[in-house]
């Protein structure tokens, strides 16, 4: 049993200063709160404590408190992270903890942002289009090695931290030309599915702007589900786009051996 498990929660407390961004679409700023923090607390616990004791109107989105719903995304000490999965004992001691909303999406209020853009873009991606069933009873035969890659991508909890940290959206505001890592992962799960017959490569190159990704791997670093977004999803899609549009040899081969 680990040493953490044997500690009783609340036996050792310390006061931590928080700087929390308060405001709305018209503007705002950081406000300071001092919180008694006990062993085992996560950042979301502290935000709830502030809500309960000091700022009843502090807005924050949360649900499962277990790192599975993807609701409590924010920026903690400048890094995109889930508030419910960021332990207080892993943050620098003796310094104020900064919490602010995600920067790549419009502010609604305080720590809550409007992430509906992601859902709108997702609707435009061509949906799953399976081949004819393999078996007479209308089912398909699929082997584990064929779905391993997609299974990694299906772990996504849609917290949109990867979208938030991606500089193409965050700093360059290319929302109209680039769908971002989350939706590239979604597309990769479809494209690599052996049952799927749809071709999304032209959309990836033109409408979805996969070329805007310059492989910073920031999305991979912040993913709470540890999905290897860049290496396993985005770069393989980039290579498929190269096959389709940039590589003269593969283009020539398609003349003699069409799909």
């Amino acid at each position, binding site marked *: 049993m680990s040493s953490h498990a044997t500690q009783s929660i609340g036996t050792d407390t310390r006061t931590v200063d928080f700087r929390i961004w308060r405001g709305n679409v018209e503007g705002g700023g950081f406000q300071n709160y001092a919180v008694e923090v006990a062993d085992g607390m996560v950042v979301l616990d502290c935000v709830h404590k502030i809500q309960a004791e000091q700022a009843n109107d502090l807005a924050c989105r949360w649900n499962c408190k277990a790192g599975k719903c993807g609701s409590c995304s924010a920026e903690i000490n400048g890094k995109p992270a889930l508030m419910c999965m960021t332990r207080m004992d892993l943050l620098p001691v003796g310094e104020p903890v900064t919490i602010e909303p995600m920067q790549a999406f*419009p502010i609604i209020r305080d720590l809550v942002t409007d992430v509906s853009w992601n859902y709108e873009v997702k609707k435009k991606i061509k949906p799953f289009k399976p081949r004819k069933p393999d078996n007479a009873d209308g089912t398909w035969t699929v*082997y584990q090695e064929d779905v391993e890659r997609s299974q990694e991508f299906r772990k996504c909890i849609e917290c949109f931290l990867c979208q938030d940290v991606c500089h193409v959206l965050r700093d360059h505001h290319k929302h109209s030309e680039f769908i971002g890592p989350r939706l590239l992962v979604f597309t990769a799960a479809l494209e690599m599915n052996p049952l799927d017959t749809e071709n999304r490569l032209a959309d990836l190159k033109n409408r979805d702007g996969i070329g805007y990704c310059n492989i910073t791997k920031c999305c991979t670093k912040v993913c709470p589900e540890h999905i290897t977004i860049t290496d396993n999803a985005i770069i393989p899609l980039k*290579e498929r786009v190269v096959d389709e549009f940039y590589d003269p040899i593969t283009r020539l081969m398609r003349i003699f051996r069409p799909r």
Partner: protein
Amino acid sequence: MSRSSLALPQVRGFLQTNRKDLWWLQPAATLVGLLAFIVYSTWAAFQGAHYFTGGPTAPFSQHLLSPFYSPVLWDASGLESGHAWFGSQPIWWPVGLLFSPALFILPFPGLFRFTCYYYRGAYYKAFLGDPVSCAVGEPAMRGDNYRGEQKFPLVLQNVHRYALYIAIVFIFFLAWDAYASLWFTGDDGLNHFGVSVGSLVLTMNVVLLSGYTFGCHCWRHLVGGKHDCMSCSKMRHDAYKGVSWLNTRHMLFAWMSLFGVGFSDLYVRLCSMGVWTDWRIIG
């Protein structure tokens, strides 16, 4: 909501961030590491001397050849390494223009590394600040003009797989050099098997470069990643898994092989200059 009508927060200024960790350390280390290699390799490439030990007295007796110069198409003027395919400096080489055998070689592995997916991400951060580090503000001038690899000139990075093809050929040349370094001409005029420190250095160089080259994202795609059906070929699936193992360590091999190839040149150079002695371990 329209994708282009979002009321987004104001973009932060250059280097602005609320991060409290040492976010600048990795790009700074990348900058120093890559600059050091670029400066040394450029200097070494233009030397046109001390790129081999031994001489042309017998096959395999040349012993060590710098990977920056391998394969040698033409020897530098006045030198006879025994490795040159076409003899000495070509007569068509413009008079007054500095000649070095490495100038025909280094652009190819250079292109492979320049277009490598790992290095791209690393030098975009370290050299272009695009971004300097994750969640750190970029130079304001770029702003909405950002083109990434979507448009010219960086769309040309898609040439990477062709650079890979050439890099694979180079692995065979370097493996041959490592093999040749295991043979020594004895007093009887015959070649005898042996191992020197230089043999180990050149062998280490090939192993590290192979780990880097065969962990390439393009190679991973070509050996199996481009197919949706992995169960259709066990060989394909096994190859994909093997390359994926290397690919997860691509950054590690990228740096180790960069250091390895630079050190190999330095080792051969110092042995050739007589500063170091290539100690024989076996044979």
